[in-house]
């Protein structure tokens, strides 16, 4: 493997792009100017190429963490600038790199009416991409924490500067909720310093060294709680989820995609990377409570989604429900659940992005987010309706589309852990069918409502933005192997590290007798 810092390049390329956008002459920053959008798209596509190279040359049978870079940063704190990807991190980095150009292309005109110019909008999106890649590839807890908090700033300005009428309040709510979670995590990060400083390794924040440090059982449990609450707020899980519907409704559709598809994954990624790996005993201890909360999230999110009249809020609640599935898969502590939830994170990113973006096209045309203002759109804009249907079906995990594979694995893992979790999870699927199909029926089918009659169908740019998502959803639905090939070894390593084993499959006695010679 060459020693070229590919991951640092993937992190800093979008950030440099953001700075370039800000520095563009004011003619380029005027509302509606095309140059900043092209520059932004260019930077995001180059980042995609870099990440694609990393993914293509990732050695499936090789070391756990690859493309590693480790440098001392603050010796006194034990903090390092350390990056590295394993299968799980690589999946999420890839998802980020794929989604950003899609979002930029779909949000071509969204930055024009904001408080600041177009350049600012795309600059914040690129900055968010760079920081997200850094979060997913950080192998040092201090670096992770710093970038975890740093991601709040672009999203805050994206929601607050560009979006609906109540965007200011939504942005502040988002910021305070996540800051609170971040500060609780700070207490745990500080505690980790003290624990590691007292051990023979000296103060350190490198994951590889921290996971070797032995901790007192109660101390580990408290530290786990600090991390877990922060990640639960991020995910979001019930009962700390109320910031998401407001933020998703008030932000532009592109902002909501970045928020839900990328930023929220930091929460569940953190659960796998930090909660499980650093505090395995505490994770096991907390499993009953966490699984209960996960199931509550699944059902609550689905029920709330069914009752929504506002499309973005509905999609936000479906996310709460989906994240319940992801957390369920993580904390059942077997390989089906973990592989399923990692794959779920990628697939959910794609399908929710498609949902938000197509809904965004619809809302932009009609000017209203309410389902009751629509009806019979498929007669007027069939392409839009078709893409909406595909996105919706992927969200309810139709077999043949990629989310089905991941949902199936998660439910399999849940059943393997204990049957009642699986039953609760399956209920979620039924409710998913309800919320998606009801929404589709009310908005797309039926007689064309007067406000909808003049709607134009999607133009080429808008279709081109969604096509990669659809291709991935359908392609990975039939052939998930490229992703599972990189995910499975990482999951296996994680579970080995925390001494969790899969339950042995139960084979019926009759089959055993028949099978034996």
């Amino acid at each position, binding site marked *: 493997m060459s020693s070229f810092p590919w991951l640092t390049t993937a992190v800093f390329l979008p950030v440099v792009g953001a700075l370039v956008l800000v520095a563009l002459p004011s003619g380029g920053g005027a509302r509606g100017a095309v140059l900043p959008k092209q520059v932004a798209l260019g930077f995001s596509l180059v980042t995609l190429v870099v990440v694609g190279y990393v993914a293509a040359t990732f050695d499936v049978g090789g070391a756990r963490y690859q493309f590693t870079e480790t440098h001392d940063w603050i010796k*006194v704190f034990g903090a390092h600038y350390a990056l590295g990807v394993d299968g799980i991190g690589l999946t999420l980095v890839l998802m980020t790199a794929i989604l950003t150009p899609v979002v930029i292309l779909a949000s071509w005109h969204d930055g024009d009416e904001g408080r600041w110019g177009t350049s600012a909008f795309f600059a914040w999106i690129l900055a968010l991409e760079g920081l997200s890649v850094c979060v997913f590839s950080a192998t040092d807890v201090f670096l992770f924490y710093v970038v975890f908090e740093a991601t709040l700033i672009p999203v805050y300005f994206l929601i607050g500067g560009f979006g609906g009428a109540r965007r200011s309040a939504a942005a502040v709510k988002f910021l*305070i909720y996540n800051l609170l979670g971040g500060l609780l995590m*700070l*207490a745990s990060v500080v505690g980790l310093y*003290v624990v590691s400083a007292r051990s023979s390794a*000296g103060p350190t924040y490198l994951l590889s060294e921290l996971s070797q440090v032995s901790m007192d059982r109660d101390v580990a449990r408290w530290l786990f709680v600090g991390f877990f609450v922060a990640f639960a707020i991020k995910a979001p899980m019930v009962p700390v989820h109320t910031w998401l519907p407001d933020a998703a409704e008030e932000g532009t559709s592109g902002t909501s995609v970045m928020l839900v598809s990328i930023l929220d994954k930091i929460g569940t990624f953190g659960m796998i990377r930090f909660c499980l790996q650093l505090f395995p005993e505490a994770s096991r201890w907390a499993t009953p409570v966490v699984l209960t909360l996960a199931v509550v999230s699944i059902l609550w999110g689905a029920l709330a989604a069914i009752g929504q009249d506002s499309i973005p809020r509905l999609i936000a609640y479906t996310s709460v429900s989906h994240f319940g599935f992801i957390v369920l898969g993580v904390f059942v502590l077997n390989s089906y659940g973990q592989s399923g939830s990692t794959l779920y994170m990628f697939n959910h990113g794609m399908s929710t992005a498609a949902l938000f973006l197509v809904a965004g096209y619809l809302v932009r045309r009609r000017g209203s987010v309410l389902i009751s203002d629509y009806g019979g759109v498929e007669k007027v804009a069939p392409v839009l309706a078709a893409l909406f249907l595909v996105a919706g079906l992927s969200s309810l995990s139709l077999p043949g589309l990629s989310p089905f594979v991941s949902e199936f694995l998660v439910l399999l893992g849940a059943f393997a852990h204990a049957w009642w979790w699986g039953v609760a999870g399956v209920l979620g699927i039924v409710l998913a069918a309800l919320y998606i199909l009801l929404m589709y029926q009310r908005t797309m089918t039926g007689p064309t409502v007067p406000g909808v009659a003049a709607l134009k169908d999607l133009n080429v740019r808008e279709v081109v933005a969604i096509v990669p998502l659809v291709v991935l959803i359908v392609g990975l639905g039939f052939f998930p192997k490229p992703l599972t090939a990189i995910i499975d070894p990482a999951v296996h390593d994680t579970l080995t590290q925390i001494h969790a084993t899969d339950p042995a499959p139960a084979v019926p006695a009759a089959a055993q007798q028949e099978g034996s010679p």
Partner: protein
Amino acid sequence: MTGLTGLTGTTGTTVLAAAFQKPTIDYGLLSPLLIVLGTALLGVLVEAFVARRARYLTQTVLSVVGIIAALVATVLVAAHLDPVGTSAGRGKVAVGGAIAVDGPTVFIWGTILALSLISVLLFAERTLEGGITAFAGQAAALPGTSAEREASTQGLEHTEVFPLMMFSIGGMLLFPSANDLVTMFVGLEVLSLPLYLLCGLARRRRLLSQEAALKYFMLGAFSSGFFLYGVALTYGFAGSMNFADIAEAVSGRLGAQPLLLAGIALLAVGMLFKVSAAPFHAWTPDVYQGAPTSVTAFMAACTKVAAFGALLRLFYVAFGAARWDWSVMIGIVAVITMLVGCILAITQSDIKRMLAYSSISHAGFILVGFVGLHQVGSFAGTELSSVQSVLFYLVTYGFMTVGAFAVVTVVRDAGGEATHLSRWAGLGKESPVVAGVFAFFLLSMAGIPLTSGFAGKWAVFTSAVSGGAWPLVVVAVVLSAVAAFFYARVIVLMFFSEPVGEGPVVMNPSLLTTIVIAVGLAVTVVLGVYPGPVLDLAANAGQFIR
């Protein structure tokens, strides 16, 4: 001087048993202090003898040169500190035991002088008031009278503020380095009296300014009285004013000693007043609001650094052996201070008052680090020590505070500085650069990572947890979240609200204020991303000597 053997007239028995020992005054070690006091005295002479027109320039140049010379002297002193025995401390107790020049002392001296240097630049700013300083033209003229109008028309300036500031800096250098109680009291008074005066010298809103000065003076005099009473009781207990002797008496005590405990409590009252810890914080919002903003910046930064240095020395060196007696009390004070600072700031409608309450909350955070008392070498690992973390926090806090107040001076309307929060609405549109810089300072105060405020908070929290004060850290973390709310509110106001009426105007200041803001910003950024060197410097300071 020889002994008084001459009295007996013979070489037989002498009257005095011992010859008078001339105390060694290590002028070299004290050179920063002497340079600053010398500059102050020269400033007074300038006021007496230099023509009025030339005074401003002379005083400014003199002050800046004096502080730079003192800074250079501090560096030289720091480079030549000798280790004391086998302990981790380096330095020397000078002037017959009255002043201790050790590692923490020179670190604090360096911090105070660096902060004073940028504060002097703020004092010297003339562009914002249209060619004249922000200090009253003739302080003795009653507000609203013809004398005041005449002074204003004639363009009079009180350039005495510069030597006053230098005297105050001298006191600030003496206060944390004092090794006995009387010297400490002298340092306290020398630093406070000029500040009382400076607070009353605003050019605009003079009544508010004079009220602030009077409040500061009355409450300060009271707290000095408490301090002095504490000195008396402690002397009564220990039989000596010297910290080393007090420490011996404290560690050798048997049973409860009400005299000592009362002495500690009263001394604590005096010190906690100076650092604006609750419940002795009531003066802070009024004084910070009424004083001229450049004086507020100077006070908020330098007084706290000096006072915390003195607090550390007094409690760690003199009363270190009694720490189980005072740490609970200080812990409770820390919690109340953080509560008061974070919660009351939410209701403020004036930016200077809000920054004052934010200062109070920072004092609470520093007290958290102070309570988690442990020194280098008291544990096997390589954890941060309390002294190191508090010194580092003081550096980060000082620079971001001076920077923030410097930004406050440039946001103005027709009546001078626009300090009401409603006047700051829409500042992001009017001047994105200024609003962005101020937002960055606010984020640093809130403790967002990649800013110096975060590094400081992190250092203080880790040393507190290492010292066993983890409940305080949990409270501090929760209250930081509360504090983040009012910082975010100002950012929302600047960037996401429409201007009220005409909106604020950002005046272009001269190079002086621009330098101050730039330095504050640079330090906040650099210490956020790369705090290692300064942390190592604080660690090198080592322990207090006795």
